[in-house]
């Protein structure tokens, strides 16, 4: 199972900030968003295993995915 974590205003779409996913069947980040009910437009930055990724990036069961909304510097 892969792990997904969401931050800041994306938390309003999910019950838990952290969830596990099953990536079988060649999934992308977009597919995960649909499963979780998070609107694509709300996601500004996708990180997979600490590296910058995109909505179209494939995900695997070994992956740690982190999603961030649009947030500005302090």
């Amino acid at each position, binding site marked *: 199972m892969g792990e997904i974590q969401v931050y800041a205003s994306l*938390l309003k779409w999910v019950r838990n900030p952290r969830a596990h996913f099953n990536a079988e069947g060649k999934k992308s980040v977009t597919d995960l968003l649909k499963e979780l009910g998070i609107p694509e437009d709300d996601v500004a930055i996708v990180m997979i295993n600490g590296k910058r990724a995109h909505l179209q990036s494939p995900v695997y069961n070994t992956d740690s995915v982190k999603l*961030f909304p649009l947030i*500005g510097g302090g």
Partner: protein
Amino acid sequence: MVIADCAGEAYIPWESESEGEGMNTVIRINTRTRSILRETVSEDDTKWGGRGYISHLLLKEVPPACEAVGRYNKLIFSQGLLADTSVTTAGQMSIGGKSPLTGGVKESNVGGFAARKLSRLGIKALVFEDTPTTPSTDVLFISPMDMRLDSMPELKGKLVDETISLLRQKYGKGIGIFCIGPAGEMMMYGAGIASPDSDDVQIRYAGRGGLGALMGSKGVKAIVLDDRGSDYKALYSDREAFQKAAKWLIDALRASPKTENRHVYGTPAILALANEVGLLPTRNFSSGQFEFADDINGEKVRQEIVSRGGQGKSGQPCVPGCIIQCSNIFPDKKGKKIVASLQYENISLLGSNCGIGNLDDIAELNHLCNQVGVDAIETGAALGVAMEAGVIPFGDAEGARDLVRQIGEGSYLGRILGNGAQITGRVLGVRRVPVIKGQAIPGYDPRALKGNGVTYTTSPMGADHTAGNAFETLKTMDPLKPEGQVDASKRLQLRAALLDTLGLCLFVRPPFVQNPEKFCELLYGRFGWKMDVRDVMGMAYDVLKMEREFNRQAGVSEEFFPMPEFMCDEPLPPNNAVFDVPMEHMKSMWENEPVLTQF
């Protein structure tokens, strides 16, 4: 069209049909003769506000090579051009002078309640000149009927909370206050200037650059502003046009997802992302990731505020009328306020940079910095350097609290730390010191966010993220690549210079990027100035030109103050990046006129 050259003279690039009255009263306080003069500024000077007016006055009146805490420097409080209007976030007070810390120009702006009082008194700027011949603890009092320097020796050495409380007892509840703590009185270069909100819950700081030491050098402990009975009213040239643009800004900000995040999670909202992309200062800038980041991020701040309740709150304004409201009140386990507001910068410098991974500890440290009167960024960096030197180990929160208390007590160790990271490193024999132009690098390691490295190096303000923060380029640029960072920083520096001159918060940036003509509408509505976007951006460009000229004459141009060598030599985990934007690219940033037709 006349574009001002660096001397800042004859700045009249647009035609005015002004029927609106600008704030044109400047109060000059001579701290040696104790004379207080009210003067009306020239028409040229009414065109400058906030940061721009500070730069303009510095270049005109302060010898760039003077001693920062000597008699020829001036401490300037300057209202933004839109300070006396209802536009949201207006009320940021620009405070400046020649920086004790950098030796160059400094403008640091601060929210709070007092700037509004100053604008209700119709005062554009306060200029403190000269130094007293004997040590003084003075309070400048201004009301519509009176202006005077009150000697208050009973405030000497008092912490910020005690000072505010004694001032309220003497002058009443409804006053606006700026003050310094003992660190400023002792002229420590890490000292800032504090400003509370109306009920003294939020203590805001013009923290950067050591302006608290400059205020201390003038023998001025506090400024008290009483606007009761003032009949000043901003006269609008076209109130309807102004209000239309002001309403547009509110609607546009409400629609921005950045606003929602800032409102709910505050500036700490960015900590998780800063950690994930590896730019979070950790253990004296030796790593960009902190293993306890989840315990100190914006989500955790929010969770503690909600679950602890009591006085804890998110979504607090730092100036009246702000609709973003990114401030918070961080409570202890019993719900009693520890500090307000707990900000990203302070968490990163006092927390991860010191190896401290507990929000209560960080909030306590932040509170202590606010009390003794030092910049939490500079002090967090100095503590990190002291930890590297082995004075106390990384992660020792109790030891760190003791050190900050010592700053207020004025012990020799406290004085070393209170003078900032550079002096701390020099005295303690540490080579890895995160400063540029003598000022500590804030919460974005420049190796992992190279645009900020360019800003730290090239900005007239030294290592200061508010001079052009590239964090917002994370979505569109690779922060690890040197390419494109000089152009990005240039654009960001122009934006910051403009907003600082108007007196608006940097957080109103997003809507104006799409609609820069709204600046023109606001300025037309208030003053009747007919400016196009090019004129408005030209104003920002001229502010930077004046500042760069002041710094050139002061001997603090960027080529003499490069990125610290360890930032160029030591790869930063987890990206193993070094800072590698060539100095010749950074130096040539302003060789060609920037694109001024967009914000």
